[in-house]
C-alpha cells in the first residue's frame, strides 16, 4: 500500500494546472486591456467624426454663402452696365439740365448754344419728359413764348406731375414765387393720394424746409392733412403701416452668438425658442440707438434755402425714372445679398424693405411711413424723416406693442434638459436610460434624479460583473467526475484526488472572486465618473440658462424706454385718448 501511495505524485499535475491557470489569466488580462483600448479608440473616433461633421457643415454653409456673394457681385456689375446702356442718355439730359440752370445763373452761355443743345437732346430722347422741358427753358430765356409754350405742353403731356414739379422748383429758384406756387397747385391736383409717385417725396422734403414760401407750405400742409385724414379712416391702410413698422423693428434684431451656451444648446431642445426671444428683444435697445440719433439730429432750418432747393431740384432731375425701376430693383437685391454676406433669406427681407421705397406708387400714409423707416431709399433727409415719424407715431407705438407682445407670447423662462443616451460618451457606452430635468427643478433634486438614473443604468452591468456562487457548479462537477473515476480505480487515490480537486476548485474560485471584485469596482468607478460628468453638464446648463434669461430680461426691459421715446417724439401732434 505504501508503494502505491509513494508512486502517485500530484505535484506535476498541480503545477501544470497552475501554469495553465496563470497563462489563461494573463491572456484574459491582456485581452481585456486590448478591448479597453479598442473601446477608447472607438470613442475617440466617434468624437472626431462628430467634430468633423460640424466643421464640414459649417464649411458647406460658408461656401454656399461665398458663392451667393460672388454671383451677386458679378450680377450687380452686369445689371449696372445694362442700366448704363439703356438709360445712359437720360444721364446726359440730366447733366445738361443742371448745367443749363447753372449757366443761367452765371450768364456766360449764349442763347444759341443753349437752344442748340436742348434741341439736340430733344431729338435724342424721344420719351423723356425732361428733354422738352429743357427746350422750354431755353425758349423762355430768349423770350420765345411760342416755342416755350409748345415745349411745356409736350413735357406736360409726357409727364404731368414731374413737369409741374420741375417748373415749380425752377421758377422758385428764379425768385418767382407766385408762379411757382401755381405750378405746385397744379402738381398737387395731378396726384392721387392712393397712388403717389416717387417724386412726391421731393415735395415732402421741400415743404419740410418751407422751400416754397409760406403760401406753398400752407398749400402742401393742407393737402397732406386732408389726404391723411381721409386715408387713415381705412383700417386696412393703418394696419399695413403697423406691419411695416413691425418689419422695421424686426430688422433691428441682432444674432445670438452661441459660444458659451454649448451645453444648454446640446441638452435643451427649447434653446432655439430662448434664442429667438433674446434676438427679438435685442431689437429694442437697437431701436433706441437708431431713432434717438434721428430725434436728436440737428434740424435747424438751413440758412440758405436756395441750397436745399437746388439739392431737391437736383434730385428730381438726376434721380431715376419709372422705366429704370425693374433694373434698379435687381441692383438693390444683389447689393443686399453682398451686404448680408450671402444669407439669401435676410437679403430678401432687406431688399423687400428697400424696394418698397422704389415701388412706382404708394398712398400718402405709406409714403410717410416709408420716409420714417427708410429715408435714404426715398431720397429724403433726416428732417423729413423726423416729421414723418411724428405723423406715424401711433403706428410706430402699435408696432412696438405688438412686436413685444408677440415675442413675449412665445417666450420661455425655463427649459427642459434632455439627458439622453447620447449626452456624453459614458451615456453612449453604458446605454444611459435617459432622464429629462426642467431648469425650474431644484438643483439638489435634479442631481438626485441623475444619480438614480445612473444607478439604474449601471445596475445590470454591476450585477453581471459580480461573483456568483453558481460559478462553482461547473468546475465542481468536473472535479467530482474525475474523483469518482479515480475512486472506482482506487479508493485511496480517489480520496486524495477529492482533497486536491476540492482545493483546486476553491483556489480557482478565489481567483475568480478577485477578478469579479475588480470588475465591479471598475464599473462603480465608471458610474461615479459618468455621474460626475452629467452633474457638471447639468450645473453648466443651469448657469447658462440663468445667464441667457437675465440677458433676455435686461433687453426686454428696454420696452418702456422705446415707448417713452415714441410718446415724446418732438414733431408728433397726436395724443392718446381714453375709451371710457
Amino acid at each position, binding site marked *: 500500500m505504501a508503494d502505491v501511495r509513494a508512486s502517485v505524485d500530484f505535484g506535476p499535475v498541480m503545477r501544470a494546472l497552475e501554469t495553465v491557470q496563470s497563462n489563461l489569466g494573463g491572456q484574459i488580462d491582456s485581452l481585456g486591456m486590448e478591448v479597453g483600448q479598442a473601446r477608447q479608440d472607438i470613442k475617440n473616433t466617434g468624437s472626431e467624426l462628430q467634430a468633423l461633421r460640424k466643421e464640414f457643415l459649417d464649411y458647406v454653409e460658408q461656401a454656399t454663402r461665398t458663392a451667393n456673394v460672388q454671383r451677386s457681385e458679378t450680377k450687380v456689375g452686369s445689371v449696372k452696365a445694362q442700366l448704363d446702356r439703356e438709360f445712359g442718355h437720360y444721364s446726359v439730359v440730366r447733366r445738361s439740365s443742371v448745367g443749363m440752370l447753372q449757366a443761367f445763373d452765371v450768364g456766360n452761355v449764349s442763347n444759341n448754344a443753349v437752344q442748340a443743345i436742348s434741341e439736340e437732346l430733344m431729338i435724342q430722347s424721344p420719351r423723356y419728359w425732361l428733354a422738352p422741358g429743357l427746350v422750354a427753358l431755353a425758349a423762355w430765356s430768349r423770350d420765345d413764348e411760342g416755342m416755350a409754350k409748345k415745349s411745356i405742353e409736350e413735357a406736360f403731356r409726357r409727364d404731368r406731375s414731374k413737369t409741374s414739379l420741375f417748373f415749380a422748383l425752377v421758377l422758385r429758384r428764379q425768385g418767382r414765387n407766385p408762379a411757382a406756387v401755381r405750378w405746385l397747385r397744379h402738381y398737387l391736383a395731378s396726384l392721387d393720394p392712393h397712388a403717389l409717385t416717387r417724386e412726391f417725396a421731393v415735395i415732402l422734403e421741400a415743404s419740410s424746409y418751407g422751400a416754397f414760401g409760406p403760401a406753398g407750405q400752407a398749400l402742401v400742409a393742407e393737402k397732406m392733412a386732408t389726404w391723411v385724414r381721409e386715408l387713415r379712416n381705412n*383700417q386696412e391702410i393703418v394696419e399695413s403701416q403697423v406691419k411695416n413698422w413691425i418689419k422695421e423693428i424686426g430688422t433691428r434684431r441682432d444674432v445670438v452668438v452661441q459660444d458659451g451656451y454649448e451645453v444648454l444648446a446640446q441638452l435643451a431642445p427649447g434653446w432655439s425658442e430662448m434664442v429667438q426671444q433674446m434676438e427679438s428683444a435685442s431689437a429694442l435697445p437697437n431701436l433706441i440707438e437708431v431713432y434717438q440719433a434721428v430725434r436728436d439730429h440737428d434740424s435747424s432750418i438751413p440758412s440758405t434755402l436756395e441750397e436745399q432747393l437746388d439739392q431737391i431740384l437736383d434730385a428730381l432731375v438726376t434721380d431715376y425714372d419709372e422705366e429704370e425701376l425693374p433694373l434698379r430693383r435687381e441692383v438693390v437685391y444683389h447689393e443686399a445679398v453682398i451686404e448680408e454676406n450671402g*444669407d*439669401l433669406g435676410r437679403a430678401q427681407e432687406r431688399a423687400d424693405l428697400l424696394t418698397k421705397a422704389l415701388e412706382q406708387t404708394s398712398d400718402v400714409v405709406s409714403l410717410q411711413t416709408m420716409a420714417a423707416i427708410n429715408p435714404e431709399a426715398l431720397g429724403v433727409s433726416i428732417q423729413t424723416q423726423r416729421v414723418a415719424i411724428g405723423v406715424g407715431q401711433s403706428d410706430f407705438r402699435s408696432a412696438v406693442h405688438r412686436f413685444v407682445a*408677440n415675442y*413675449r407670447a412665445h*417666450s420661455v423662462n425655463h427649459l427642459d434638459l434632455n439627458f439622453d443616451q447620447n449626452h456624453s460618451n459614458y451615456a453612449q457606452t453604458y446605454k444611459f436610460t435617459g432622464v429629462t430635468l426642467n431648469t425650474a427643478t431644484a438643483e439638489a433634486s435634479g442631481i438626485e434624479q441623475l444619480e438614480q438614473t445612473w444607478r439604474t443604468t449601471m445596475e445590470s452591468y454591476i450585477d453581471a460583473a459580480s461573483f456568483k456562487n453558481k460559478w462553482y457548479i461547473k468546475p465542481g462537477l468536473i472535479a467530482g467526475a474525475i474523483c469518482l473515476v479515480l475512486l472506482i480505480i482506487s479508493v485511496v487515490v480517489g480520496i486524495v484526488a477529492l482533497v486536491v480537486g476540492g482545493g483546486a476548485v476553491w483556489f480557482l474560485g478565489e481567483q475568480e472572486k478577485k477578478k469579479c471584485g475588480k470588475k465591479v469596482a471598475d464599473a462603480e468607478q465608471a458610474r461615479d465618473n459618468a455621474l460626475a460628468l452629467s452633474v457638471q453638464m447639468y450645473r453648466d446648463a443651469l448657469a447658462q440658462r440663468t445667464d441667457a434669461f437675465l440677458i433676455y430680461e435686461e433687453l426686454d426691459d428696454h420696452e418702456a424706454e422705446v415707448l417713452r421715446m415714441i410718446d415724446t417724439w418732438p414733431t408728433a401732434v397726436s395724443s*392718446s385718448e381714453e*375709451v371710457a
Partner: protein
Amino acid sequence: MSGIFRNGRGLGSADHGGQLMPPSAGLQSMTVADNYALSQRKKARNAEVVDTVLRLDSAVDQSVQKELADWLRDRYSEMGVGELLGLFSKCYLGAPYVDHQIVLTGDIIQHFKPEDVVPVAFAANRRLVQSAAYLYIEVYADGQSIPIRADGTPAI
C-alpha cells in the same frame, strides 16, 4: 450683454435669423369686429376699469365678485369694444396655480395649474400673462387678445 450678440448685418449663423416670428393668431385676427370696435379697443382703459379688474382679481366673496363683474360688463358694453369673452391674468394665489380667467357671467374666476387645459381662446396667452409688463389680457370673441398695462394702455 457681454458680446453675446453679433449685429444683424454681420455673418449670421442662426438659420432662423432671416425670419420674423410668426405673429400669434390672437393678435392678428381682426376680421370680424367692425372698424368702430377696433378703434375703440386702441384707446386707453380708464383708471376705474383697471381698478375694478384689480379688485375683482383679488375678491374672494362670490357676491362681491358678481357685483364687480356686473359693473365691468356694463362698462365694457358702453365702451363699444365688441364682444368680450373674458379677461386672463397671472394668478397670485401661488403654487400650484399660475394663471386664471375671469368671465363676466356665471362661474366668474377660474384658476389654472400649469398642466390644466385652458379654454382655447385664452390658451394662446398663457406665456404672455407671465410678463410683468401687463396687468391682464382682454380676450375677444373675434379672436383678438389685447394686453392691458397697469396704466390702462392697451398694448395694441
